[in-house]
């Protein structure tokens, strides 16, 4: 498997299936780990960074359990657009893409997991599933963690647990996040209220691309803040207990809109579809915004010639780096906006002309 093989697909987390996938995009768990015999990244020398990368690659990633179909990319040697591509795909973090020095990422088959080396911590293992399925994500991430741990010694403290570069991750080193699509809560202006109540139970809300990013396209990530003093399963349950409540709120808000203002809602969705299938130039933000309406429209049966996997594919393929990779050349913002509009028109025209039942 090579990087280019990923371009045409949309990755596991956008598969658009799995439990509650009309509202829950993906479930993700990441573990932060450090080797006991190296300093944390901020004090690591270039030599240390290389040695950390080498230790993990040569000792752990060759484990029988892991090596199958593993794609290893030397992130420090990748072009900007390729790093950006991996960020859009959520296989690496923005921080990992933008930092300097020896670093890499190992990507598992079907993009269900990735191991970032020399990010904020020596190793960050993440597993992503489509839909709401944290239990399966935990089983898998813990299994990968065990496989790595057979070959290296982690920095672990009897009392504090897994030691991390930032004290906000110490203990389990685990961040559980569920990405939700909540357009109706945004339209009905209830979203802020929901967030406030989540903060009260120490859950964090972030935008599509993590910390500091805007909530583009009405996508929100709900995750645990606390990593110490509770078991992994407790932390997972805290998130999994609240997600059904949010799903229920969103469904009720959708039902309310359908009941009270179906005409307006149908109009909003159809206009969004209209712009997407006929614009000559369109920004990434506007695309996200409109696709969000279309996605809800598909779920509510207001649009019948598109399926959720199509919409998910459009979300990812219209991101700047994806667009450039698909086109096969670098494009500036203005050219990207033209290319994006043309990609959307082409895609929607093809889909529109075919039997919807064939699309999945």
């Amino acid at each position, binding site marked *: 498997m090579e990087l280019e093989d990923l371009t045409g697909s949309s990755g596991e987390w956008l598969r658009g299936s799995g439990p509650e996938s009309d509202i829950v995009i993906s479930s993700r768990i990441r573990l932060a780990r450090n*080797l006991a015999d190296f300093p944390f990244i901020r004090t690591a020398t270039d030599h240390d960074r290389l040695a950390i990368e080498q230790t993990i690659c040569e000792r752990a990633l060759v484990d029988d359990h892991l090596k199958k179909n593993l794609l290893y990319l030397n992130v420090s040697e990748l072009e900007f657009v390729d790093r950006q591509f991996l960020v859009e795909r959520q296989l690496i973090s923005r921080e990992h893409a933008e930092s300097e020095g020896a670093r890499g990422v190992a990507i598992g088959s079907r993009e269900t997991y990735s191991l970032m080396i020399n990010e904020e911590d020596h190793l960050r293992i993440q597993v992503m599933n489509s839909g709401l399925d944290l239990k399966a994500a935990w089983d898998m991430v813990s299994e990968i963690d065990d496989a790595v741990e057979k070959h290296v*010694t982690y920095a672990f403290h009897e009392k504090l647990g897994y030691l991390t570069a*930032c004290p*906000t991750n*110490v*203990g*389990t080193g685990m961040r559980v996040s569920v990405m939700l699509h909540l357009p109706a809560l945004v339209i009905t202006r209830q979203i802020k209220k929901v967030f406030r109540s989540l903060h009260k139970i120490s859950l964090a809300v972030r935008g599509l691309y993590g910390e500091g990013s805007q909530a583009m396209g009405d996508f929100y990530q709900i995750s645990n*803040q*606390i990593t110490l003093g509770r*078991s992994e399963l407790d932390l997972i349950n805290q998130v999994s207990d609240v997600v059904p409540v949010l799903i229920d709120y969103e469904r009720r808000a959708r039902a309310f809109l359908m009941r009270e203002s179906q005409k307006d809602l149908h109009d909003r969705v159809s206009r969004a579809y209209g712009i997407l299938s006929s614009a000559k130039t369109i920004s990434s933000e506007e695309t996200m915004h409109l696709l969000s309406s279309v996605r809800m429209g598909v779920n509510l049966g207001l649009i019948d010639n598109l399926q959720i996997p199509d919409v998910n594919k459009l979300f990812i393929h219209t991101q700047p780096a994806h667009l450039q990779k698909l086109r096969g050349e670098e494009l500036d913002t203005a050219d990207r906006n033209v290319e994006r509009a043309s990609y959307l028109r082409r895609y929607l025209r093809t889909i529109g002309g075919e039997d919807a039942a064939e699309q999945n």
Partner: protein
Amino acid sequence: MKCQHCEKPATFHITELTGVEVEELHLCEEHARNYLTPVDPQSESPASQTLAGALAQQLQLGQTAEDLARLDQQACPICGITFYEFRNQGRLGCPHDYSCFEEELEPLVMNIHGATEHVGKRPRRSSAGSEQQTELIRLRREMKEAVDNEDYEKASQLRDQIKELEEEISSQQE
């Protein structure tokens, strides 16, 4: 250096990483306290759960600038960073910092997590040998310093020591 907002000396140097761009702030104790105390209690993330918030709470607990200055000068014998550097950058230097700055970190960890003891998964492998691993971090740092100072004799001694210790550790692991 003077505080950005008044004539007092800047005793707090904050690197703000939350926005799009990295911002550096140099503030006196009073302005730092104001800056680190969130204005809106319902702002995006609850202060007590972010690192900056937890550091701010530590200030509110009544530690004076002198107390902090004293704590700040302690350096980790393994990686060499001071608590001051940690406060400034929000990232620790090596696993041993958790032991060497234990006293300062405990209230911080408590603020962030509401707990100070790990519950949950543990590595299958015993971490009993971790003192040797920590020692490796120190030896490697000293070797680099020796090379930087062109003290090649010391560097080569350290290299041999590192090799010996690495072999010892790997033989224990098999």
